[in-house]
């Protein structure tokens, strides 16, 4: 039993969903999503028992490329995030009618497949392929099933595609360059490379461009808000919940260990960029009129902090970043889902057109409040663990980083509560708001449950990721 099983399940699932026809598509997709989640939990068990669940096979002889899927704690954690969120996301779409739903759900599973592959691949080219592959389904999901004016949407989505592709192509060049030196793109072979500081800098920058756009860090974020807004909520969830973690994961897995000298040399700049994103994102979020856009900018702020954490090159920074990635994955999916629930009833995403929902739907309001609070990292939620650890790591580098990064807890509370106040509170809305349905409730409660459970007991995840992060740190520190 090895990790390729997950990929096979998801890929087969994508085809099966497509063949199942429009009526059955959503259920088949959910089935395969759950199967993948189940399989990954079983695999996690095997992994924890110390079994080798990696899968490595020669693929292309010239150039020398392997089909290498290596599962360590970090990959397993991200894999779980993907496979657990995927069925949740699929389930969350129940109740929406999508035309041509067989393609829609097939694309979701396919995207999940590509993202899972990205998290598992340990050969540079394989990784790159999965990385690019994940772009295609989301492009179509956003383009075809998105909302708003078609021309506007097209513009936003094409910009997103070209922009991210542009970034990643430079990463490809970096990989090719390293291939020249190493004769292979297997991660462990790349680790053995002894690149000069100058080479490392260029490689670091090439990677950075790819990741900064994907994550996104300012000032490369301009695609984000528009695409989040225009994409169907399922797409937005996939993007914000999992896909932007691909960038952050890649920083930890590829960028830092492959170009540690550059990472160390210019650490302050990149931490600074992350923190600038925190402040900038938070401030821009304040005055957003569209709920999804507001959430997009809040994502920008959160990932800025996570990125800053990774660039500290400390165990706390990396660990906090990973914890926060997972936590943010759940919370942001929950929030976007909440936005979707409102949209289903009010047909609007403009905050100004909401308000007064609390009197009509106290249950839903409580759930959204919990998500809001989790997103502002209230202790006992998972997000607090991540944010605290990241901020702590920043304080180890320089207390000012912690203070500036910590403004997120003030500004975050500001924009989130402001949104909550205007969207949910106030005089009873004249338009009726049906309370959450069972499906909606289950989804939200699941997410909230995860957030609280790991908020109180993050140890399982910490124990899972720590050894691999330590190994990565050894790689980062191997020179000098």
């Amino acid at each position: 039993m090895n990790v390729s099983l997950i990929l096979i399940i998801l890929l087969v699932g994508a085809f099966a969903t497509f063949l199942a026809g429009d009526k059955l598509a959503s259920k088949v997709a959910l089935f395969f999503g759950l199967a993948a989640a189940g399989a990954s939990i079983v695999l996690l068990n095997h992994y924890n028992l110390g079994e080798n669940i990696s899968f490595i096979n020669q693929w292309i002889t010239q150039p020398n490329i392997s089909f290498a899927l290596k599962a360590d704690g970090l990959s397993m954690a991200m894999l779980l995030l993907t496979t657990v969120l995927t069925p949740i996301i699929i389930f969350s779409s129940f109740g929406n009618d999508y035309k041509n739903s067989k393609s829609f759900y097939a694309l979701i599973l396919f995207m999940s497949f590509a993202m899972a592959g990205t998290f598992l691949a340990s050969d540079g080219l394989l990784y790159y392929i999965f990385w690019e592959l994940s772009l295609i389904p989301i492009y179509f999901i956003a383009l075809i099933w998105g909302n708003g004016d078609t021309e506007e949407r097209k513009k936003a989505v094409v910009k997103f595609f070209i922009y991210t592709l542009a970034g990643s192509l430079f990463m490809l060049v970096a990989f090719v360059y390293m291939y020249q030196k190493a004769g292979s793109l297997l991660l462990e072979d790349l680790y053995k490379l002894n690149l000069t500081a100058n080479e490392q800098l260029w490689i670091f920058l090439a990677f950075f461009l790819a990741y900064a756009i994907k994550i996104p860090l300012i000032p490369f974020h301009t695609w984000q808000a528009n695409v989040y807004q225009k994409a169907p909520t399922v797409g937005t969830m996939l993007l914000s919940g999992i896909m932007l973690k691909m960038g952050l994961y890649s920083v930890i897995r590829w960028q830092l260990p492959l170009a540690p000298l550059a990472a160390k040399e210019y650490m302050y700049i990149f931490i600074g960029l992350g923190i600038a994103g925190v402040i900038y994102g938070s401030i821009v979020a304040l005055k957003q009129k569209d709920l999804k856009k507001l959430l997009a900018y809040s994502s920008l702020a959160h990932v800025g902090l996570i990125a800053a954490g990774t660039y500290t090159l400390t165990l706390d920074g990396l660990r906090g970043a990973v914890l926060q990635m997972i936590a943010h994955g759940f919370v942001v999916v929950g929030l976007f889902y909440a936005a979707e629930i409102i949209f289903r009833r009010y047909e609007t995403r403009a905050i100004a057109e909401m308000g007064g929902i609390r009197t009509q739907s106290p249950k839903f309001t409580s759930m959204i409040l919990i998500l809001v609070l989790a997103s502002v990292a209230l202790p006992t939620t998972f997000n607090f663990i991540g944010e605290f650890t990241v901020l702590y790591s920043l304080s180890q580098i320089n207390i000012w980083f912690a203070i500036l990064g910590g403004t997120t807890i003030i500004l975050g509370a500001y924009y989130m509560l402001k949104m909550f106040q205007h969207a949910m509170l106030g005089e009873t809305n004249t338009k009726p708001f049906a309370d959450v349905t069972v499906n909606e409730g289950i989804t939200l409660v699941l997410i909230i449950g995860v957030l609280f459970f790991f908020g109180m007991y993050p140890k399982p995840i910490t124990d899972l990721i720590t050894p691999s992060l330590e190994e990565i740190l050894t790689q980062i520190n191997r020179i000098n």
Partner: protein
Amino acid sequence: MEMNTNIALVLVLAPFLGFLINVFFGKSLGKSLSGIIGTLSVLVSFIATAYFFGGIAAKPEGIRISLFDWIQISNFNVDFGFQLDQLSILWLLFVTGIGSLIHLYSISYMHDDENMHKFFAYLNLFIFFMITLVIGSNLLVLFIGWEGVGLCSYLLIGFWHKNQEYNDAAKKAFIMNRIGDLGLLVGIFILGNLFSTLDYATLKTAIAGATNLDMYWLSVAAFALFIGACGKSAQIPLYTWLPDAMAGPTPVSALIHAATMVTAGIFMITRLNFLFDLTPDVQSIIAIVGAVTALVAATIGLVQNDIKKVLAYSTVSQLGLMFLALGLGAYEVAVFHVITHAFFKACLFLGSGSVIHALHGEQDMRNMGGLKKAMPITFATMLIASLAISGVPLFSGFFSKDEILLVAFHHNIPLWVVASVASIMTAFYMFRLMFLTFFQEFRGTAEQKHHLHESPSLITIPLIVLAILATIGGLISLPGNSWLNEYLIPILPKLATAEHHLGTTEYILMAIAVVGGLVGIGIAYAKYIKQNTVPTEDAAITGFSRVLYNKYYVDEFYDVIFVKPINFLSRFFRDTVETGLSALVFGFGKVTNEISYQGKKIQNGSIGLYLFVFVLGLCAIVSYLFLAQ
């Protein structure tokens, strides 16, 4: 040990259970039952606390309970644990004790509210977090409670969520608290970096055992922690949320914004006394901030007309006095004042609630008056509490406030002067409140007058209990023979060596304070009873009173220097920077497209041109290769 763990869990979880029951089943339980469950759950905690209180004498080192590993940091682990020692038990006693009373009070007070079960749920949740704050064995568990009570404060201030102004107040409270929380976090970070632990006990040993402490960073940490305390305990510059927080139902003001939550800052500083003792600079800052807060808040309190606003500024002012004591290293005095203040201020708030209840929501004292006859119990209890806060001898406030003034006098005369002036003002505005509310003729509408009545017993019983406590509360720390000081010795070892004697100076000072208080009362009497003055309409207020009435325009000031710029920046970023960046990215596309458009003109279809370029290219290549070499 097992027993203790279980009881401690009961102590912590009983209110949480109450919260869960009220949240999920409150509506179906009915109003009375949900109120009873809410009250009982806090009472259970109180009983559990009493159990520990009974056992603490036998175990002066306290009880430590570690439940599980919570957060792992590279250089240390934070466990989820409890520490039940003198300090936390003391705090738990009055939190759960007063908490129970206020719950009881709320059963009646909130009976007309359709969301009463939610109210009790939030109150229970608050008690749960407050207990967590107090009981935690390290700074991060404290932080859970710290943020948790902030959340409950947010929920309860905005309890009437249909009113967006209340929601604004709630939001403001939460955000200002979070500014403080950031300070607290920064302090935690520095301590973690310095000592690799956040556990109180370990921290204490580490600081005591350290050979060369980094004083600079220690001071920064202490200062950062102090900022945290400022936020939670409403000190300058983070105090403006507290008066606004009066938007919440009155029991909330009594419980959260007078008796318990706002004392969290004092708790935290007392908890970390071993740290603050090492940083005299920060202590001076605390003392000065405390004294200034006491004075500023008192001046504002002089002219407020909203009954709850007066009490709110009074609370800020009293908290300032406590911080003054903390800054002077007299933690036990601060704690003493916390306790007596909890009694009389809770009583005052509940009393004012009783008045507001009777007047159906009227809060402006200009529309009150003459309630003495209609509401005798409320009047009597509030009078006792007012006497206590004004420092009239033999009431609890006299002892605690007097000790603060004493300490101030011994350390720093100017601070003593400031504190004394604040105390005199306190006496004045408290009796201004009493006179305007209970004496003379009723100034409200006839409709209101018709409905005037004393509140039901569920409201008056807590008032009476609190009034009794406000009277006799001083007994726990009589000058020269202080049970409290003895009790706190394990926490504050300095006390063991401190001398307790009353000399001439002390008596003179006491006399000055008492006279001062009486003068304050006298002026109030002269103005509001003799001259029968009623405060003027808002528009007619002039001169310095206008400045005071408008709270020194601090809110407006903050609005101009923080809120407006941030909002401006937000709009600027949204409209200009975002569009600009976006245009920049699109710009690449636009430029290439434009080049493409121009390029199309070259491709004009003429064979002649094509061949010409062909030949040109040929010539260029040949000449580059063979002529240029």
